[in-house]
């Protein structure tokens, strides 16, 4: 991707006027190539050069902002290749044929269903408003109501252009997403979007159909496009999502270089099945999914799924060595020692947390190995652990002398006790983290 400094230099005016802040056009070109400057800084660059440059530097899948949520910009097929970047946005559907109570309940769920996890707040992202009635006035009223009821970004859905325009006007400046432009009306929808600062979904019956008119929307001045390629079930969604990403990343097809939307609540009426569709959509490339409701029991697994799939796999799977406080431990709280493999830490910490027993968790650096692996590699063994425990400063925080080791390394307890001497009493804990709550409560 991208052009070299020399290629960019050839497109610049070569007058070295310095207005861009660089001493020469060549220096400016180099800065551009390195991503350290913006093309806008040169007032003299030709439109033609601008087009070439922005084309070459654009990401293969465009980033599209809806309200404060960005989708797209993905660069890979498999998360281990690099990372997935902008997590799939989850939208909740309301329609102008629902009664007030139903709309209020759904918006309330969207606003309030959140989960705290590893220091993050997980929640759904967007409100999709559908003009099921066909009535422009009703639709506009619902958009206005929604604007007062939620801060979330909006997707405005109507086949009726008057309704779509009324909704778009009501939401002017909020960065709404208009659903949808088709092959027949795309220029008109693009006009409405442009006038109201909105982005546009290009919707067709197939990937091919959609690819034939996204260019017209862009040409009409709306660059923020999202694709609905007409999937109606799990299989077609899986196929289309794969093909769109392949077209964008491998064939470098600009007409399909956009994030996607899957209206999965139209593919099934069964809330469980809808959750399964959502699960696949998150793993396999959807930019936005529209669901029928944001209920806790489905959102908890789905938001965790999204967090897991979009976690940066390059991040080392280790925790920092040290003392971790769980459930606000005090001087008489138990001490558990384990390794710094992130999963070990996370599973053990979750169990301790669930037990609600205040506990000190002593994490030892064994290069991110699990307990058994570290033990067999000679890293989680008595003569390495004892000096670590002594240096850790753990003793200074407690008024007892008990230290609990994982049940999987019960065999080291004698030697560990010998190494530690009389300052500590070694206790064998459970093999499985899942048995920890009962163990801790029984101490």
């Amino acid at each position: 991707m991208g052009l070299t400094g020399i290629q960019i230099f050839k497109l610049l005016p070569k007058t070295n006027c310095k207005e861009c802040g660089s001493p020469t056009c060549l220096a400016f070109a180099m800065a551009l190539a390195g991503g350290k400057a913006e093309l806008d800084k040169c007032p003299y660059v030709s439109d033609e050069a601008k087009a070439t440059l922005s084309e070459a530097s654009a990401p293969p899948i465009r980033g599209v902002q809806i309200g404060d949520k960005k989708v797209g910009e993905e660069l890979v097929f498999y998360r281990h290749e690099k990372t997935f970047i902008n997590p799939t946005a989850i939208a909740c559907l309301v329609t102008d044929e629902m009664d007030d109570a139903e709309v209020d309940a759904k918006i309330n769920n969207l606003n309030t269903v959140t989960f705290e996890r590893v220091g993050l707040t997980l929640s759904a992202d967007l409100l999709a408003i559908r003009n099921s009635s066909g009535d422009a006035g009703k639709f506009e009223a619902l958009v206005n109501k929604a604007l007062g009821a939620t801060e979330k970004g909006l997707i405005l859905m109507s086949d009726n252009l008057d309704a779509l325009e009324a909704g778009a006007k009501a939401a002017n400046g909020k960065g709404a997403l208009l659903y949808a432009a088709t092959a027949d009306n795309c220029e008109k929808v693009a006009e409405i979007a442009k006038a109201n600062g909105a982005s546009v979904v290009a919707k067709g019956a197939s990937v091919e159909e959609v690819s034939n008119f996204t260019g017209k929307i862009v040409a009409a001045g709306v660059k923020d496009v999202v694709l609905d390629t007409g999937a109606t079930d799990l299989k077609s969604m899986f196929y289309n999502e794969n093909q769109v990403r392949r077209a964008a990343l491998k064939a470098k097809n600009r007409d399909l270089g956009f994030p996607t939307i899957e209206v999965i609540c139209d593919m099934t009426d069964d809330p469980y099945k809808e959750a399964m569709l959502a699960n696949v959509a998150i793993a396999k490339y959807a930019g936005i999914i529209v669901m029928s409701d944001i209920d806790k029991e489905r959102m908890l697994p789905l938001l965790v799924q999204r967090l897991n799939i979009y976690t940066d796999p390059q991040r080392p799977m280790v925790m920092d060595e040290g003392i971790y406080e769980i459930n606000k431990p005090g001087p008489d709280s138990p001490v558990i020692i384990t390794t710094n493999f992130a999963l070990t830490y996370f599973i053990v910490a979750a169990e301790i947390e669930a037990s609600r027993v205040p506990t000190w968790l002593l994490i030892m650096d064994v290069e991110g190995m699990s307990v058994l692996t570290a033990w067999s590699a000679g890293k989680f063994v008595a003569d390495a652990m004892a000096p670590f425990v002594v240096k850790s400063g753990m003793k200074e925080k407690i008024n007892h002398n008990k230290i609990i080791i994982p049940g999987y390394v019960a065999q080291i307890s004698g030697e560990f006790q010998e190494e530690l001497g009389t300052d500590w009493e070694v206790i064998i804990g459970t093999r499985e983290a899942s048995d920890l709550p009962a163990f801790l409560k029984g101490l």
Partner: protein
Amino acid sequence: MAFSAQTEKYSGKMGTLTFGSGDQALTVGGQASMPFAAFDGDLPNKAVIAMEVYDVVNPEWPAAVVEPFKDVINDPVAWAKKNVEEYGAKAICLQLASTDPNGEDKDAAYAADLVSKMLAAISVPLIVWGSGAVEKDAEVLAKVCEVNEGKNLLIGPAVEENYKKIAAAALGYGHAVVSQSPIDVNMAKQMNILINNLGLPMDKIIMEPSTAALGYGVEYSYSVMERISLAALAQNDEKMQCPMINDLGKECWKAREVMLSDKEEPGFGPDQEKRGVLWEAMTAVDMLLAGSNLLIMRSPKAVKLVEECINELSA
């Protein structure tokens, strides 16, 4: 730019594994494309779900997952029959939890006898899973193999510390082996090589690359499995061409998001069953999307949901 569908062709393909005997035998694996990508290559065998049966149930199990089995929960053979006859299980996985030396510590002869009884009672292939206690598993599974000679059971998990005895028994008495490794591509390959070197052919080995549940490291299992699949297909690495199995039921049903009631954690939502079923079903679908061929699952509702996904994606 005109759209043209892109396809991926791979030089390698995954091997197969057949377990069970006679006309009840099931074959998994053999895929020449990444999961469900029939538009790229041949997918001769659909993924299979084996339903779990425990010979002793942890009293901590949430009520939601005890409920479907509450009439048979103390009778593993009846439980297995119920799974097959009522819940349509295509295979059964017997979890020999009672042989755990830290639990009831039941002996190998008991386990072998239970397996024989179960084989006589059900009409689907059987997987026999140890308690995870490395030395005891070797002893128990070897006996299971011997007493049930020629039944082509799938037994495991064989790990670095006990694979020799388990693989030897499988080879000697005509069974297949689960080769388990700790979430690492190279260690998975190493285990295949070690077991294969003992004389067990590759089509008698299935990999368990260590299964983590949603929220508990599922992304590690997911990426390791995608990398194993790509090594088998794109790099044609013969030592990676064993199909994959995921022992996921027990991982999912101990997640705190599943274990805790609405009273204990109100933010999680009152319908604890829905949470649990989806936790297991979503973890299962993640494993399938990453390349799994055989899933071990617990909840009949979750099994049904995942089977629907398999069928729709394979249609």
